[in-house]
């Protein structure tokens, strides 16, 4: 019995290590900057969802903003923008940007999470 528990714990640790080391375009390019901001990426997603509603609309609006950030089109509050201003335009390619936004959508999309 103890043998099985040991194997399970080992597998769990291995899995955690893999997750921690998950390396993709989103984790490399989005998380590093946002982890120092007071508003989480998840709250920002909910703000985007409240303004743009649908998947296609949200993704296209987000990509447009990331390519050419503008206070006028930001979903963040004036207080937040006064303090942190808008980000620099993204340096990602079109394909990388698409991939990052898709990952972002998949991660925080509320569908199938309501019950």
């Amino acid at each position, binding site marked *: 019995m103890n043998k099985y528990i040991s194997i399970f714990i080992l597998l769990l640790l291995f899995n955690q290590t893999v997750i921690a080391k998950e390396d993709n375009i989103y984790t490399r390019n989005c998380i590093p900057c946002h982890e120092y901001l007071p508003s989480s990426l998840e709250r920002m997603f*909910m703000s985007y969802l*409240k303004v*743009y*509603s*649908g998947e296609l609309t949200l993704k296209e609006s987000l990509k447009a903003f990331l390519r050419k950030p503008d206070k006028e089109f930001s979903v963040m509050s004036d207080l937040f923008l006064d303090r942190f201003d808008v980000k620099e335009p993204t340096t990602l390619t079109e394909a990388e940007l698409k991939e990052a936004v898709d990952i972002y959508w998949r991660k925080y999309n509320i569908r199938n999470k*309501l019950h």
Partner: protein
Amino acid sequence: MLASKNRDISLHHNNEKQSLWRFLSLYIFLVIVLVSLLSIFYYQSQEELMFSNMRTKLSQYANEQVKNLKILHHYFPAKSQYPRDERFQSAIYDIERVFIFSTLKNNNIDFDKEIYRVGDKIHFVKYLDDYYLGAKYLFIEVDEDRAWHHETIIQIIAIGTVALIILGIFGIFFVKIFLRPMRNSIELLDNFIKDTTHELNTPISAILANIEMMDTEIMAQKNIKKLRRINVAAKTVSHLYQDLTYLVLGHQTPSRDEWIDLRELIAARVEYFSLLADSKKIEIALDLQERKILIDSAKIARVVDNLISNAIKYNKRAGKIKIILKEEYFLVADTGIGIEKDKVAAIFDRYSRFNSSEGGFGIGLNIVKSILNEYNFDVRVNSILHQGTTIKIIFPKEAPNE
């Protein structure tokens, strides 16, 4: 044998009744259409009223649900239970009309209507300004209360029936007013015929009697020809006189049914009309079987006379007439001018004439039809324009044959 026929064979009154019923049917049909349309409008207005009342209530439910969605949006994902209310069901869809969540019992939704019925449910759609949880469309669903429907149907039936009865009574008055000019003109014509008939009897009888008495053996050939022409003309007028007499008096007197040798009668009438046929060089072919029939002799004579005289009158010069008498039927076929297909049904109507080149009042076949109706004889007409007409009288199966 004296048989009294109670049946009303007056086609004059039948035609009037027919016209009255036609007008009345059309009027009632239009009234029903009108009442139906008004009922539909009334039903729709009541339905609209119901939707209007529901709209207020459902709008209030929707506002409450929006508040709940706002709270859930704020606390998501810490809280992820979709807000529910026992008074209604709801569903949310995003701006691209993609499903987010639903508790609806009937998911047959319409994004383009504010409020609508689906099955036994009412759906109300609210368009959100802030898309909490990404929801642009919020659907609120409640069960439909059908009480208004039953109440409206009962009202429509009650009011509709009363309206139909009142308008129907008005209709009868209107129809009588509209038909008055037609009735007046028919009465005028009838009176004219009645008066004329009384004046025709004596002179015609005198002409025919004197023609019979004339000694043609001492007469010049030229005068014999002239006398024949006078005879033909006098017989034509006599035939018309007999029709008019029947029309004025015939159907008012009881029928005197007796066994008539139809073959003999037809042969005699053909002989009577032979001069008329000869004047147009018409050849009459007879195929007559023995057939006795229980009928009023004057009436069957009118039938035979009219069919033969019409066959001669409307035939071409040097045409042919075929007269057949069998156990089951009596047929007269001519090679005359014929009648257009769409007018065949009207040939038995009184005063209907299809050829203005020949004289007549258009009463002969009307008399024939009234007699055939009285004795339940079936009649079939087959006519081809410019080729000829065939009239076939079928004796009823139970018609007595001595």
